[in-house]
């Protein structure tokens, strides 16, 4: 009998705690709490390793990856009842770099509450792409170099997604390397319409865990980003046929693949 009391107590405590969890705070746009979205780059079923690991695409071509970088922006969170919160735009641009592990989190502030859907843009929206240079600070500063820069000077606009690596399938370039380069951008054109490679990503969190955002903890939505899909998604891209894709009509096929890279793995609440 004596031994039952503490376990009963523990049980009731647990129940109470569970109950607490279920009371969702009233939605208040001023009552902000931390939420992070983690972009975990993988290829197929394995983690992505730069330079030393060989992967194979759907065309049967072996390749290694030397660089992966992409912009995610314009985050919006939805609750089950349809209420939504858009993160203020100035705080809503992130550059995810495989070479910089700290950059894999988009750190946001959203009202306390339970969210079952996450929506963001892969790339930089057209409005920001045409804004005064004063408004392009932080990761949007067009000051990066050719190697790691994410900005096209000659055709004003951001490179939304960059994947580079080596493959015997790629012809030798001027430097003698068998390098492939995929630089995907294009916000639709400033005064003449052209390709639009901005992709909106909508992720249902219901199955793998909704985000319970509270002030006293930090909820983290853990996404897997399958970089293998760049070449082997809804469109099969051959490195031999297209070793270098930048601003061209063909880039749309890769942009369509990019939209399929993201899956929700779990949420840490």
């Amino acid at each position, binding site marked *: 009998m004596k031994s039952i009391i503490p376990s009963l107590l523990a049980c009731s405590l647990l129940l109470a705690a569970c109950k607490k969890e279920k009371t969702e705070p009233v939605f208040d746009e001023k009552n902000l709490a931390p939420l992070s979205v983690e972009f975990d780059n993988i290829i197929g079923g394995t983690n992505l390793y730069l330079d030393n690991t060989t992967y194979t695409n759907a065309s049967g071509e072996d390749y290694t990856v030397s660089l992966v970088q992409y912009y995610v922006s314009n985050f919006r969170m939805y609750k089950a009842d349809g209420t939504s919160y858009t993160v203020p735009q100035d705080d809503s641009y992130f550059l995810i770099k495989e070479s910089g592990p700290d950059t894999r989190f988009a750190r946001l502030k959203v009202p306390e509450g339970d969210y079952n859907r996450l929506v963001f843009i892969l790339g930089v929206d057209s409005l920001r792409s045409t804004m*005064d240079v004063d408004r*392009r600070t932080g990761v949007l500063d*067009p*000051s*990066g170099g050719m190697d790691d820069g994410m900005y096209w000077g000659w055709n004003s606009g951001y490179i939304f997604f960059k994947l580079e690596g080596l493959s015997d399938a790629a012809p030798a370039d001027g430097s003698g390397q068998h390098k492939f380069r995929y630089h995907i951008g294009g916000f639709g054109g*400033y*005064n003449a319409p052209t390709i639009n490679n901005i992709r909106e990503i909508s992720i249902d969190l219901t199955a793998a865990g909704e985000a319970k955002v509270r002030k006293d903890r930090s909820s983290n939505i853990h996404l897997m980003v399958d970089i293998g899909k760049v070449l082997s998604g809804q469109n099969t891209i051959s490195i031999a046929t297209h070793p270098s894709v930048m601003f061209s009509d063909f880039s749309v096929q890769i942009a369509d693949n990019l939209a399929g890279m993201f899956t929700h793995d779990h949420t840490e609440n």
Partner: protein
Amino acid sequence: MKKRANALVLILSFIILMISCKKDIRGLEENIRQFLGFEKPEHFPEPAYHFDTNPVTEAGFKLGRKLFYEPRLSRNNTVSCGSCHIQSSGFTHHGHDVSHGIDDRLGRRNAPPIMNLAWHGTFNLDGGVFDLDLQPVVPITTFEEMDETLDNVLEKLRTHPEYPSMFREAFGSPEISTARLLKALSQFMVMCISSNSRYDSVMRNEAVFTAAEQAGYIVFQRKCASCHKEPLFTDVSYRNNGIGIGFNRDPGRYEVTLDESDRYKFKVPSLRNLKYTAPYMHDGRFYTLDAVLDKYAGSMTYVQNIDPLLDKGNGQYGIELSAEERVQLKAFLNTLNDEHFVRNKLLAE
């Protein structure tokens, strides 16, 4: 005694008058020397540049001018903007069909003039840049031009003995950022205004054309003005002027829009300052004005997207130009040379 006092007052007031006059003259001199900022020439349209987010100030302009002539903008500190945009050549690279940049690497296009850019909404020969502030990124980072990164340029300027204080004067604090660097350069570039040619004097009713110039003006208005629109002498549009595909098959504006109907189109160049800006065309293929006129008046053949204004309707392309009209036209074009612009000390290094 009273008389004496009166005389004293008279003398005194005369002295005061003299002093105040002197003061007035001094004030006037200061006004003349004072920096006037951006002023739209009377006969020019409203500018396209966004002065609301980047007003031209004296300190900003001077900083922009120093940066324009600053070789530290290039990887090995050898090439400045002014290297290929030479004031005495109307801010072009006189004598070069395509420009050579760092390490004597050759580009693929002719350096366009830094002139009246406040009235342009798009930049470069293909219009790929839509904000003057973003334009300097192109030459700074292009392999054949300055081959540098903006990050490196900012670092070099931050450790320079003069720049931090110049940035403070221009922008209120010594911080050197991408936006400030680019905006200072814009403040210099929008001040590169060519509006003091003989043509401009005539438009301001300060001079009259000679008979030949006047006849040429009429030829111009009938045969050239639809693309080379007054008073900028460009309509800032992109056209294929029928000179034929160049050796490097440069597709021009197509690269920016990926629209087949833009292939081989380039920005209509201004006709101002032709005396200083040879060679002509996007690849500098014509070394003389006569070579250009020969092309228009003679040997022009169909090319994809050739401008419809060049279609004579009988399967032939070009512009009808008699020998007499040609002489008159050249007399008129000569009135578009702006000696003041190419010698203006305000714009010099």
